């Protein structure tokens, strides 16, 4: 592309400039037509996107290498889910399971989640379209066709969640519950059963250390912090965010506090979660299965 001289004072950014240049090159008519077509018949077009390697074991093997390099960091070796990414062997995926959905999610990322667009996570190399299809072929080769039998009683799990187990004092599901811990509405699809059970039995075991900088806008670890204010008040809660000079936190009564660090008497961070340890005498294995079943049923919606 040639240089674009700035003749006029107004500068509306690159997109306007590029559109102008595209118009000059006669691309715009075609581009607009394509966009209009896509808007009118999205499903038809999406249906036409098919994996060219479907069922090819050689492509699946190549996809496994690509998966290890590009995806396993979050989704785990074997795609059964890591501390961050969901289990991809399940056929139910929150953001779609059609070939077109998978291709879209891998190449463009999933807005509002930490799933980055292809080549932008700062650690793997970007993949070609062909390599993305190989990964999809690999995922198809390992997906679990029939869902595992329900592990518990979801209805009873919901009763426990909002009742005796006290989960809802700190966690929200579908807009109802507490604020101190993470919203668990989507956790059923985002995490493996093992990691859900592990989070309840040993909540201080961090399953998601190792964020890369590009995905680390917020401290998503619900790290415990205790600060002492200039007038001697001790406040305990979780870190909402933090940088070199400031700290944003929520205390156990769900009050938000905004601090400049150099004004505080002390800041004590801890890797011990504020979430109590639910051992099997407090919460039986059967009851925990029911709660997990409830979370899976919500996540599957």
């Amino acid at each position, binding site marked *: 592309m040639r240089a674009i001289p700035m003749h006029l004072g107004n500068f509306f950014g690159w997109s306007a400039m590029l559109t102008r240049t595209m118009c000059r090159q006669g691309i715009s008519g075609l581009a607009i037509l394509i966009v209009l077509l896509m808007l009118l018949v999205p499903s038809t077009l999406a249906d036409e996107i098919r994996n060219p390697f479907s069922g090819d074991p050689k492509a699946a093997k190549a996809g496994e290498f690509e998966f290890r390099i590009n995806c396993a960091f979050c989704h785990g070796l074997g795609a059964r889910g890591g501390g961050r990414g969901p289990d991809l062997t399940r056929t139910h995926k929150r953001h779609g399971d059609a070939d077109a959905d998978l291709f879209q999610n891998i190449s463009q990322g999933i807005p509002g989640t930490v799933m980055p667009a292809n080549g932008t996570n700062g*650690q793997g190399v*970007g993949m*070609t379209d062909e390599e993305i299809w190989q990964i999809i072929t690999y995922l198809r080769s390992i997906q679990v066709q029939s869902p595992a039998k329900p592990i518990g009683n979801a209805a009873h799990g919901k009763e426990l969640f909002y009742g005796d187990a006290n989960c809802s004092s700190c966690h929200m599901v579908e807009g109802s519950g507490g604020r101190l811990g993470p919203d668990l509405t989507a956790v059923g699809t985002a995490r493996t059963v093992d990691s859900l059970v592990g989070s309840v039995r040993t909540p201080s075991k961090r399953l998601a*250390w190792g964020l890369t900088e590009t995905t*680390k806008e917020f401290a998503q670890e619900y790290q415990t912090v205790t600060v002492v204010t200039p007038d001697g008040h001790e406040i305990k809660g979780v870190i909402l965010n933090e940088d070199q000079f400031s700290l944003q936190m929520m205390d156990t009564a769900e009050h938000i506090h905004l601090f400049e660090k150099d004004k505080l008497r002390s800041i004590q961070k801890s890797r011990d979660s504020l979430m109590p340890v639910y051992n099997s005498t407090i919460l039986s294995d059967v009851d925990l299965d029911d709660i997990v079943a409830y979370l899976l049923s919500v996540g599957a919606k």
Partner: protein
Amino acid sequence: MIPSMKKLRGVWLLMLIFLGFAVATRAQVTFERLVNSSSEPQNWLTYSGNYAGNRFSPLDRVSTANVNSLTAKWVYQTAATGKFETTPLVVDGILYATAQDDRAFALDARTGRPLWLFQHQLPSDIRPCCGRVNRGLAILGDKVFFGTLDAHVIALDAKTGNVIWDVAAVDYKEGYSFTVAPLAVKNLVILGVSGGEYGIRGFIDAYDADTGQRKWRFYTVPGPGEPGHDTWEGDSWKIGGAPAWNTGVYDAKTNQLFWPTGNPSPSNRGEGRAGDNLYSNSLLALDADTGKLNWYFQFTKHDEHDWDATQVPIMLESGDKHLIAQANRNGFFYLLDRTTGKLLSTNAYARTTWSDSKDAEGRPVPNQQSSPTPEGRTVCPGALGATNWMAPSFDARTNLFYVTAREQCDIFSTAPQPYEVGHAYYGSAYFPSDKAEPYWGALRAIDPGSGQVKWEFRHISPTWSGVLSTAGGLLFTGDAEGNFIALDAASGKPLWHFQMGGAVYASPMAFAVDGKEYVAIAAGSSLYAFGLP
């Protein structure tokens, strides 16, 4: 009449000479200006600010005494996404820089208002390893130069952004790209290639600045019959990697380039490429006119952890000794005699678990527990290294070498992978260890003579920002949370900060226009310039 005509002619001649001189110094960036860059501290003429690579600005009006009143002067937004890694150049009031997706632009350096914009049209199937990034331009004469993600080298007219020449260095489809800011030397534009994750054969190129004709190419992996070829097993040299993706330095007295190189391919699996794998992870002393190798020093032999040695080296003078120092990605600080390439000293400046001993030359050698396995082994530093491409700085007055360090350990596991042209070729994967502490970072001040860390300024998470030192007794750096921070260069005490609202993946620089000093850095998708009120 005749005498007065003669007199008039003389005046005209004088005026012409004067005018010609004035225009030449305003518009033309000559090689002599690049050599003597310290005599025009208001300008920032090369990626690292000068040929020595020290990213030290002689500007001193912004100082420890007044930095607490520093304020944002302007912000320029690229309206692009992805990491914005550029270091701008400034020449006589005009700022030149690159941005994401191979954009380049020129701004009024006082106001941030654009003069021209250029975007190279990239094909859809480029092979960047680590984002659609570019780290900057070189300037020479009336042209600016940059390398692109589809492995082109482009010269733009500095006044308009018009393309003067555009050459394809190599076929990008084989995994080659450019992200480096080139270095202009004499009439040459010098740059090294990226692609260590694709099984390329690395090289450093020199192009005629006027025509774009390639004058020399140094292959960083020797071919058959060349010295060092026998450090590769079988045909592994053909896909041996050793890219050269960061900007080297230049010694005008000896007409030598000192250019660092990156990892052998595949990056994390040594199987199949037995040997030292020259000249991967090395510092190369090259004759600037011919590209002939004078000496080399290999920091990490037969690397299996992706520890590119591509960090900017810095030339230092100590009495009559001509030295060169590098804080290496493998966690060690190296001091070399740059006349001979001999290692003088080395010391760890970050947590390292891969070496317990040194060889006869004093080079740290790997231990048995560091080699990756299929099950995986935890090694420090991690895959991104104890530092990376973020620029270091050296201030001769404090005699401290400043480096952005990362504290991160990773599990390295091998994954045998066949080579395919243009496909990612790691041979491995890496993961954070569940047991590992959260990653963190620090700006560390190293005494280059002893290699000892004198102090550190701790970052709450690792940052990809480099460091600028200034004659005002200041250091500038950025962090992953978006802060731009000024510190006392002697003690590391933070003196001022500004929240820019986007993570920093760039190194700061300084310039002045009309006697007013500025410090600039890219953050998020914006370029910020700060100055006194």
